[in-house]
């Protein structure tokens, strides 16, 4: 098998592989930087919770559209995700519950409701698609939606970069200078949900955060500055998408999980060999040169 057959032919021969690859690259560009911010805000698990919260909305969209219409499910997911984010914000602000506790409660309720709604009408195949995604079934309109979400994400991040960094790094300072931190927090949550909806179509609700959190963790292990971290996260996500698609094609594996597993393998490698990883700890470089 030539290098061409191995690395390029699948995409040259099949339109669905091409679309899947473009979708992966778009997701990587948007989700990578978003994941870095989520992680720096210590909201990694909250991102996971949020991805489950998207489910009932997507399920209702699926019921209304009568098929696996990605647009209908996307809009439903967006509404559900934002409602859960806002409701849990309200609950944590007005009761003794911390935000993570209220988030967990809402997402569990949300996940249960979503699975119930899908099982009400659909088959087990549909449920599997909702839970694990159908990256090889992405069509033109879905691709446009994903690309649009990525563009909006990058543009918004560029505009609100300073207040967002200030809000992550020192919320008290932003409050003291009257910087309207909650507005940027809400805007950021909106971006998170948007990217969830985008990757929800490709990777399903259970792994939608996979291309967000794993690349972010990889980036934090290697990079020191925020810009480097975001670039590296996007790159790691893109590589995972490409390698995952190639591997799933040749080995006849399910695409979504293979992509996430690829990211997980890079993560494992980074844990071992990055500057702050195990290898450096076990074999520290000598303090003296030479």
């Amino acid at each position, binding site marked *: 098998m030539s290098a061409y057959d191995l690395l390029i032919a699948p995409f040259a021969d099949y339109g669905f592989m091409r679309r899947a690859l473009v979708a992966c690259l778009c997701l990587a560009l948007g989700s990578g930087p978003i994941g870095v911010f989520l992680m*720096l805000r*210590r909201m990694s698990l909250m991102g996971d919770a949020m991805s489950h919260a998207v489910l009932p909305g997507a399920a209702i969209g699926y019921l209304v559209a009568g098929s696996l219409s990605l647009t209908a499910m996307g809009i439903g997911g967006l509404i559900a995700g934002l409602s859960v984010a806002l409701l849990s914000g309200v609950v944590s602000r007005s009761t003794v519950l911390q935000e993570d506790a209220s988030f967990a409660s809402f997402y569990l309720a949300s996940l249960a409701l979503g699975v119930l709604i899908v099982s009400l009408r659909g088959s087990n195949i549909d449920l599997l698609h909702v839970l694990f995604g159908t990256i090889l079934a992405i069509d033109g309109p879905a691709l446009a939606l994903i690309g649009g979400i990525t563009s909006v994400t990058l543009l918004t991040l560029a*505009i*609100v970069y*300073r*207040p967002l*960094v*200030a809000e*992550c*790094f*020192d*919320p*008290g*300072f932003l*409050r*003291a*200078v*009257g*910087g*309207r931190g909650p507005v940027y927090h809400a805007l950021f949550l909106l971006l998170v949900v948007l990217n969830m909806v985008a990757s929800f179509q490709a990777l399903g609700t259970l792994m939608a955060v996979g291309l967000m959190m794993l690349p972010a963790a990889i980036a934090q292990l290697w*990079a*020191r*500055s*925020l810009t480097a*971290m975001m670039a590296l996260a996007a790159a790691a996500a893109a590589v995972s998408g490409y390698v995952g698609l190639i591997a799933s094609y040749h080995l006849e594996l399910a695409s979504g999980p293979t992509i996430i597993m690829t990211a997980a393998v890079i993560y494992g490698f980074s844990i071992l060999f990055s500057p702050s990883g195990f290898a450096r700890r076990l074999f520290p470089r000598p303090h003296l040169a030479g």
Partner: protein
Amino acid sequence: MSALLTLDNLTVTYDRHPAVHHVSGFFRAGSLTAIAGPNGAGKSTLMKAIMGELRPAEGRLQHRLTRSDFGYLPQAADINRRFPISVLDTVLLGAWRHTGAFKANGARESRRADEALAAVGLGGFERRPIGSLSAGQFQRVLFARLLLQDAKVILLDEPFTAIDARTTEDLLGIVARWHGEGRTVIAVLHDLEQVRTHFPETLLLARECIAWGPTAEVMSADKLLKARMMAERWDDGAGVCEPQAGSTLPGASRSPKPSISGPAA
């Protein structure tokens, strides 16, 4: 010099328990005041109330300042020290008043940031990530950011707790510089020796105002003792509002005696 910031019968409560109780008086423009008192005396609460983070349950805070006139260094600031940001970028946040959320930092801001870093003794640290700094160095960075903020009123909440002696000395120099420039500085302090040496005026607080005025008068042994007794006594029955609580004190403005009522009824 005139009153810049007036506290009028200010009472701040947590769950109806008063933390700052019927405090009246004013900070003069350009004054350098220490807020001293035992633990739980409401010192930080008063700072937060001045910053508008806590709403008074009773009484008022009067001033004609806008938010950007204040520079605030909270105690144990809610700062993510592992955030991947450089010393220079942290200090440049202090230019918020000029740049806001969106405008770019110009040459003027960079120059001022360099000067501020030099002033706190961190010249050459610009590119260092803040995660690599010691607690003392990080406090210097926060002071540099305050320098850049160019605020009229500077509030420092226990700025020298857990900071080494050398850094404390340098940063006290910055405080003196602010005072010399005519800024109003209010600092919550633990170290009574520091208060006596560096702060001309003192507000002695034990939930209510024990004394407010020139440091030498305020920091007398009997007043300090009274402050400690008050703090201990109040721990038991903190829900009750006592009639003599609102009486005005030396250095305080002569505001009318407050009506007697339960806090946040």
